[in-house]
């Protein structure tokens, strides 16, 4: 086991190095085109004389952006220019609130649906219609009715986190082994106690899997939602740098989005391990 982990880690590093190497070679500046008149005013106005970035940025530029932003993650230069940690904090806050609200609705509702085939069949068409709607399609409607861009962002996270958790909870609850329920019935366990001590632990792995999928989607959606609504958050950061066509900063933001997404997923993986049981 141990040597294998080492090998795979080494391989990962090699792949990264190869990728960056190829990237570096591919973006090497072309042999300086003879700019005969370097002080030509036209060239100056096009920014040719200063170090202007043209074409796809080389890895070194990304490195500079990483050092610049991670070196001072908490700066606050007014409402439209904040450090990367503050932006990520705003995004995580929105995702957290939206996700918690979704969990508060999805898990109890999922329980009800899972325990009653009648309700399941009655609600099924609605779930099937609402599930495939892109969360961003809700945005104009949300802005119009909720009348607050920040809450609209949270609503979008809520609506997209809801379905995987709801469906997985219902599925997990419905799939609890008959024998266990029968044993509970023989022992005359009250319904509420049965829900918490028999069904919940039994369905927990499926529920957490649903939550993990939901969180993944929420993190995907928040970036798009913030690009649309603006103000704060990592999505706004990407949008603001896109305005300036500052690709190194955009790539840096992409990297951060990936890392945070991985961390969130890892958190749920640990939770999953904790609730999993062997039959």
């Amino acid at each position, binding site marked *: 086991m141990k040597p294998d982990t080492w090998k795979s880690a080494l391989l990962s590093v090699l792949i990264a190095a190869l990728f960056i190497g190829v990237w570096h070679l591919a973006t090497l500046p072309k042999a300086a085109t003879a700019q005969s008149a370097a002080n030509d005013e036209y060239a100056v106005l096009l920014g040719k004389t200063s170090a202007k970035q043209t074409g796809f940025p080389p890895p070194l530029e990304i490195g500079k952006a990483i050092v610049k932003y991670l070196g001072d993650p908490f700066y606050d230069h007014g409402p439209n220019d904040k450090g990367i940690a503050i932006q990520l904090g705003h995004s995580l806050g929105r995702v957290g609130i939206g996700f918690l609200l979704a969990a508060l609705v999805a898990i109890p509702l999922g329980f009800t649906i899972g325990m009653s085939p009648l309700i399941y069949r009655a609600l099924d068409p609605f779930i099937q219609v609402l599930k495939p709607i892109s969360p961003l399609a809700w945005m104009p409607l949300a*802005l119009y009715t909720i009348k607050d*861009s920040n809450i609209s962002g949270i609503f979008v996270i809520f609506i997209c986190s809801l379905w995987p958790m709801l469906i997985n909870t219902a599925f997990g609850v419905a799939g609890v082994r008959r024998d266990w329920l029968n044993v509970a019935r023989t022992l005359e366990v009250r319904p509420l106690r049965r829900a918490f001590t028999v069904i919940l632990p039994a369905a927990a792995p499926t529920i957490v899997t649903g939550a993990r999928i939901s969180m993944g989607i929420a993190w995907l959606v928040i970036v798009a939602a913030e690009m649309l609504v603006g103000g704060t958050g990592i999505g706004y950061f990407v949008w603001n740098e896109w305005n300036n066509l500052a690709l190194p900063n955009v790539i840096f933001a992409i990297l951060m989005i990936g890392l945070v997404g991985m961390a969130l997923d890892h958190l749920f993986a640990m939770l999953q391990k904790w609730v999993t049981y062997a039959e």
Partner: protein
Amino acid sequence: MSAFKDPFDYRNRLGAGSCTCGKHQSQAEHDAVDELAIGADEDTLSQRVIESAVMRAIFPDDNKRRDFLRAVGKSTALAAISSVFPFGALEAMAADKLPLEKSNLKIGFIPITCSSPIVMAEPLGFYRAQGLSVEVVKTASWALIRDKVINKEYDASHMLAPMPIAMSLGVGSSPLAVNVATIQNTNGQAITLALKHKDKRDPKMWKGFKFAVPFDYSMHNFLLRYYVAEYGLDPDKDIQIRVVPPPEMVANLRAGNIDGFLGPDPFNQRAVYDEVGFIHILSKDIWDGHPCCSFAAPAEFVKQNPNTFAALYRAVLTASKMARDPKNRPIIAEVLSPPNYLNQPKTVLEQVLTGRFADGLGQVQNVPTRADFDPFPWYSMAVWILTQMKRWGYVKGDVQYKDIAEKVYLLTDARRHMAEVGIAAPKENYAKFKVLGKEFDPMKPDAYLESFAIKRS
């Protein structure tokens, strides 16, 4: 604190940092001793606060300020900056205070040079001088500006000149009475085409082109439609016009999604800077002196907060006054270029504001009137906008041109406040003007509309 220090002394630091002379534990301690030594009276100090704010805005990097002062000397710098900057006027206004109904305000803006006056009023301290604490919030699109104003997330906002008219009429929006306080900017737009269309300078060759404009209810849309229609193209049939938020125009032009755009600066210049497009025609050559954006607020806000609104008026007009003077344009470019505001290379903003620019075809052009910031909200401008809205079918039926114009555009208030800050306002309310050489008489809007061959109504 450092705000009380002489900002025209290169030895002083304005930002946070340790003591400048090195003899004291902290800068605060150093200052305390320093001030005792100077024995400065309160007035001088409060003046210094304003001066420091200005210097900090002009030179966000403290080292640059110090280099600048070291190079030209304190008295030259003071004279140069005082001559362009109305320090005196600011202090006079700060003295005259009416109780403000609301002093913490949120104002939305789109990161384009049109927004210069309302945005620069923040870093330069014009709002603070009026006792207002204003947060200028960058916004992703015009549709979002509209929604945030309707939702009362913004107290007032940067808006396209036709937007308040459309919103008040409930066209493309739920109806909300919105007033135009001032015009933000005049001219300053352009038609930019992708470099591959270098040889298609005649609009007759544009059949099938895809163009971007920032919003349906924008001068950009109406000017582009007017322009192509004058060359015999029907803007609804012969070309495609789509709405793209200004900041995304250059990216779309580069990707080949659009052939060109009639967009706000700095994105025309940015397309040139990034070598993806060239400037086909400046909007000033379509209609010299056309309005573009406005400073607008819901009528309800205007009614409920008269003193606050008057203070806002003065702050924004002070900024307009400063922005109109060509001498100040390089300073404005410097102030607006950081990420918190327009987030653009300084040279791009400078080319837009000074009118000495690269056109993307290898020429340096010199058009000092490329962008201007005349704040006067002529009723005739609103009437022209309404004629075009009717022409292209955005409004139908009989239009009460004058009634709507006089209800939405606050010309009388603008005139009064312009006098307060010392801007000469015209005496007339309506003026004739020429668009592509064709005269518009605001007294005869229907006849004007009849005279066009290509129209929807």
